[in-house]
């Protein structure tokens, strides 16, 4: 499965558009990470716990996107976009979406 933010793939032609594929996950941060964040809110700096948490979430979203695209019979997902939204206290949604296509070598 080729995942790409591009509109077209160099050296490949799109033979069929299969529609939108998406994947998302909602995660909440755990207590320990919040204590560290409270400290960092005084001195500033990177919130590594949050960076890791959101990276894990994004990976999960991509996995689900891939699964869905594979189910559609796609061999590539183009024009992928990510989004994040805080939906409730302590929880954030991370989603990824793109266009599932079939491609072949020129």
């Amino acid at each position, binding site marked *: 499965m080729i995942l790409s933010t591009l509109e077209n793939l160099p*050296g490949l032609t799109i033979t069929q558009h299969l529609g939108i594929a998406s994947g998302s996950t909602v995660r909440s941060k755990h207590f320990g990470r919040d204590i560290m964040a409270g400290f960092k809110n005084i*001195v500033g700096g990177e919130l590594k716990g*949050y960076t890791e948490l959101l990276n894990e979430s994004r990976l999960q979203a991509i996995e689900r996107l891939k699964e869905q695209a594979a189910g559609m019979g796609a061999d590539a997902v183009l024009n992928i976009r*990510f989004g*994040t939204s805080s939906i*409730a206290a302590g929880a954030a949604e991370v989603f990824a979406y793109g266009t599932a296509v079939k491609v072949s070598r020129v």
Partner: protein
Amino acid sequence: MADLFFIFWAVIPLIIGYVVGTLLEQKHYASIRKREQEMLDKALVFNLPNAPIMAGAPQLRLVAGSVVVSVDAFKRMAAKLHSFFGGRVTAYESLLDRGRREAILRMREKAHELGATMVFGLRLETSGINNGDPRLTTGIELIAYGTAIIPDSTVTGTAAPWGTRA
């Protein structure tokens, strides 16, 4: 006495935030500049939606870099004052600038690691982690992502450190 106690707890975080925050920011900027110099001719980034046709069969990989930066107590206070008077909030400008440059650098380093020479279709994203209330922003996430282009090893003749297409 109670007033004194209150002032103490209100002012101390500001001073610590200013001193440590400024030091950390300078250190971070020094690291960013150094790494940007190192990456100068590696993993060039473009936000064009199409990649050029290349010889052979280049591999494409989704790469991303992200960072969650926190706002220190002094910057938060400064921003509050600014929101009253209006104008440029320089404290946040530098924070977002180095956050975004850090995210782009992490993405480029990842791409370089995979053997990519270019990253096309770059996208940048910013989101506040604030439990739905902008006044409670604990961190700001900056994401950079794009498509790394790994040249065909059979064309360039170099050894291929990367695996098969995912």
